[in-house]
């Protein structure tokens, strides 16, 4: 698996898109710091961008890489390699190169701005950790979609729909349920609802760490009580890990049964 990971990784590192992605984050980091003139504020703005953009890029990149490397995959399948190591190697190659672009692209301007002397370092690390988690999750989901759909256009369509659903539609539905059942106590339900969507989970996690939960009203207080504690933090990371593991398991399972 490590050999496949190595080749996929170098293949991607050589492609233009990794640099575009890296340059984009670099620019974003610099511009935000320049405009905000303050590390903590820049972190908040950055969160809003990352929460939406990282999943989108992970999804698109994952699907694109899978379909583009079809020939390479077929070449590998005829070699004495396990199927699971071929696909996991490719998946990790994509996910890691995206994560590295994200971490370096954002990290470099923040470090130069004096991140290490600032109190925002923990918030910023949390931002990068959740960003990495989101990359891992959405790349894995994208690989799942691509593995199940031979047709590229369909694959892309489903991938975009998935992103749209988790990033936007889910929130809408969630909000509507809350309004419909507003007579009932909803704090537990909303906690569970947040847990079930990795994007919401990441957003809540960061928001509450940033200490702006006062804006969130009563539910915010409940959330703060939950996510603000170490227990809540651990549970959140466990949930994010499950969100990574389940799609990865399906990649292994699905790839074993597929015909090429």
């Amino acid at each position: 698996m490590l050999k496949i990971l190595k080749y996929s990784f170098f293949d991607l590192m050589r492609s233009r898109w990794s640099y575009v992605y890296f340059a984009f984050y670099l620019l974003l980091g610099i511009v935000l710091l320049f405009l905000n003139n303050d590390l903590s504020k820049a972190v908040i703005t950055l969160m809003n961008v990352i929460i939406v953009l990282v999943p989108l890029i992970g999804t698109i990149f994952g699907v694109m890489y899978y379909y583009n490397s079809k020939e390479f995959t077929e070449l590998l399948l005829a070699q004495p390699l396990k199927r699971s190591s071929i696909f996991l190697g490719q998946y990790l190659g994509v996910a890691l190169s995206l994560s590295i672009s994200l971490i370096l692209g954002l990290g470099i301007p923040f470090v130069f701005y004096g991140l290490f002397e600032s109190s925002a370092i923990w918030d910023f690390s949390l931002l990068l950790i959740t960003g990495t988690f989101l990359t891992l999750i959405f790349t894995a989901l994208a690989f799942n979609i691509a593995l199940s759909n031979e047709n590229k256009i369909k694959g892309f369509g489903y991938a975009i729909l998935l992103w749209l659903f988790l990033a936007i539609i889910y929130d809408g539905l969630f909000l509507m349920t809350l309004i419909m059942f507003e007579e009932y106590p909803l704090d537990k339900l909303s906690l569970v609802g947040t847990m079930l969507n990795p994007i919401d989970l990441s957003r809540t996690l960061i928001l509450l760490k940033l200490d702006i939960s006062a804006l969130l009203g009563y539910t915010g207080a409940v959330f703060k009580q939950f996510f603000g504690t170490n227990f809540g933090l651990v549970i959140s990371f466990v949930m994010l890990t499950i969100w990574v593991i389940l799609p990865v398991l399906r990649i292994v399972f699905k790839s074993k049964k597929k015909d090429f």
Partner: protein
Amino acid sequence: MVSIEGLYKKFGKNHVLSGLDLNINNGGIFAVLGPNGSGKTTLIKSILGMVIPDKGVIHVLGENIKKNPEYRHKIDYLPQIANFPSNLKVKELIKMIKDLRQYTNEEDRLIELFKLTPFLDKKLGNLSGGTKQKVNIVLTFMFNSPLIILDEPTTGLDPISLIRLKDLIQTEKAKGKTILITSHIMSFVEEVSDEIVFLLEGKIYFKGSISELKTKTNQPDFEHAIASILTDNHA
């Protein structure tokens, strides 16, 4: 060398292989023939483990192929259409495949044979179809495996390279290897193969030498013998 029992495979509603049994002995050149869509590539891909059969058992060199992928160390496979990652250089591709399989130093001789030296630093995406096929051949023959599977090996080759390929196949045969070929070029098949396996509607219709086929179909030459099978079966 290869034994297949009761192989079934369908894609959707299309039954490609329906109860195929095949035994291929050690040594010699076997041609797998059949009309388009008769399941030649599916058969070959099943042997390679790329297609997973619905039913049936395949043994390669006495090993059940379901258990582990290691048996592919003993197979050299030439895929039908040479599609390689396009932003890789020829040199890098060869190095990568060597890294994934095992050490070999045969490639220099083959690169020399097919005059590929000027292309080593070019990217695979910029090569012509025939040159890609030559790279494909180098990748296949550089390992010394007892079983060689060639899916349409002649595609895009110029006459000189074709002669070199035939020589290469004969040298490998002389080493006692088993070679499995599919091709639509009947003259090529007639020239190189010792035995043919004819697939029709997912089953083996005929297995034997070319002269046996001619007697069976009462045709004077090989091409007509094949054509008569096809017309008799309305395929």
